[in-house]
């Protein structure tokens, strides 16, 4: 079930009679739902949001009284997430697979799963690579803390800014790896 033009129109009317204001509120809700599914760890947040909004629109079409549309949408989103989780049923298998991979690596049969990340790492700018190398240096806990502290001083940023910077770099790497894997599949 995908979000159709009809259901979209119905949703918009619920938000506001003013088209522009309705579109703004709709986008706001949609973005919040995407973040909701991301935080929950859904594999395909965008699709899950479409599914959620479509169900909400169907309920509106059935003249169900919805007092708080945002709250109601989150409730539906929670159900969609659980259904997706049940559908794939990879919860336990996922970790077992991770463990199995660890075992393979210990046995020296490592499959080179790191190559997409290696390639994506190379695409980064030199100073970005340096930051990541320093931040993820394989050092004992205390030494790593000290190294990160020095890194903030060197970059002239606060610890929180550094964390944010690292998070954004991670995001770029993750997106790049996903893209590479998708291309390899096709």
């Amino acid at each position, binding site marked *: 079930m995908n979000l159709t033009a009809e259901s979209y129109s119905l949703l918009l009317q619920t938000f506001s009679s003013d088209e522009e204001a309705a579109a703004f509120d709709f986008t706001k809700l949609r973005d919040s739902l995407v973040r909701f599914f991301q935080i929950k*760890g859904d*594999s395909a947040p965008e699709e899950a949001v479409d599914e959620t909004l479509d169900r909400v629109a169907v309920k509106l079409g059935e003249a169900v009284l919805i007092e708080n549309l945002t709250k109601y949408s989150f409730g539906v989103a929670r159900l969609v997430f659980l259904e997706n989780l049940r559908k794939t049923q990879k919860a336990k298998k996922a970790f077992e*697979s991770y463990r199995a991979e660890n075992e393979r690596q*210990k046995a020296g049969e490592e499959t080179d799963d*790191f190559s997409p990340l290696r390639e994506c790492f190379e695409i980064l700018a030199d100073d970005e690579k340096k930051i990541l190398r320093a931040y993820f240096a*394989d050092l004992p806990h205390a030494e790593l803390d000290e190294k990160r502290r020095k890194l903030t001083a060197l970059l002239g940023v606060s610890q929180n800014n550094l964390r944010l910077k690292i998070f954004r770099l991670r995001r770029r790497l993750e997106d790049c790896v996903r893209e590479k894997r998708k291309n390899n599949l096709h």
Partner: protein
Amino acid sequence: MNEDKLKHYFLGKLSEAENNLFEEEIALDEKLTQTAQIVESELVDDYLRGNLSASDGELFEAIYLRGEARREKLLLAKSLWRVANEQQASEIAAAKTSLSFWQTWNALRVAFAGVAAILLVGVFLFLWRNSHDKEEIVQQQNSNQPPIVIIENRNTPPIENVNSASQNVNNSNLRQNKNAPPTPAPKATPTPTPMKQSAPTLASFTLLPGTLRDEGEQFIKIAPNTQKINLRLNPPKDAAKYQTYSAVLKTADGETVFTAPNLKSLNLTLPAKKLENRTYIIFLEGQKAQNTPESVAEYTFRVRR
């Protein structure tokens, strides 16, 4: 924002009602979502690095890792730690091989001065050797014995030593050996001969692969004034087929203490202060040409100070 609460959320420590309210609050606020994602990625790092408590580790596996996307996050984080450190190692190696002309010239000058100094010291020691017959201490390992030992042995060559002062002592000992009467075969003992206070600052030990629990635990005894430790890894079968090696020294709890990438020989030197009174494991990997590194052996030993 209380980051502890976010950690509790990801580990499923909140009540259902609290959990539902909190995740809506996070999703509605873009900034809060970002903070949550930062805390999430740091939680994953903590899990990978073994920084979570046992109970949190269990919750992480049972609750957090429920979805495929999160599992993917975990694998990506693992890759990132690995690749960032590989890159670091390769950059150091590249830096070493890309010396500028002037750096090379300066290095040659220093090397020349060093050779001249060694020659002078050699002449001095030759004269000294003919006029003295002193007892010497040679650190030596006996590969037939499981424990790491420091034994007196005049029939075997001295260990490699990076410290120039101790190198001179050892060289003089070697020369003395030519004239010295044969000594009884060395006897390995788990208790090393105590080193003199003026002993070299570098101590060398040979480690055998495995845990050797059946034959008694391997241990190394580090004298208080030792500054550097040289560990020679006794090669297991088929170890010669690799072109380069990398060694990772970890505590028995899995905390990485020292890494030595791109080793050309099974020999690594590290600061003595890195080793405490505890058990360590060296994970040795070998690499053939462009192939993926393969696990070669593990060396378990205990440090005694």
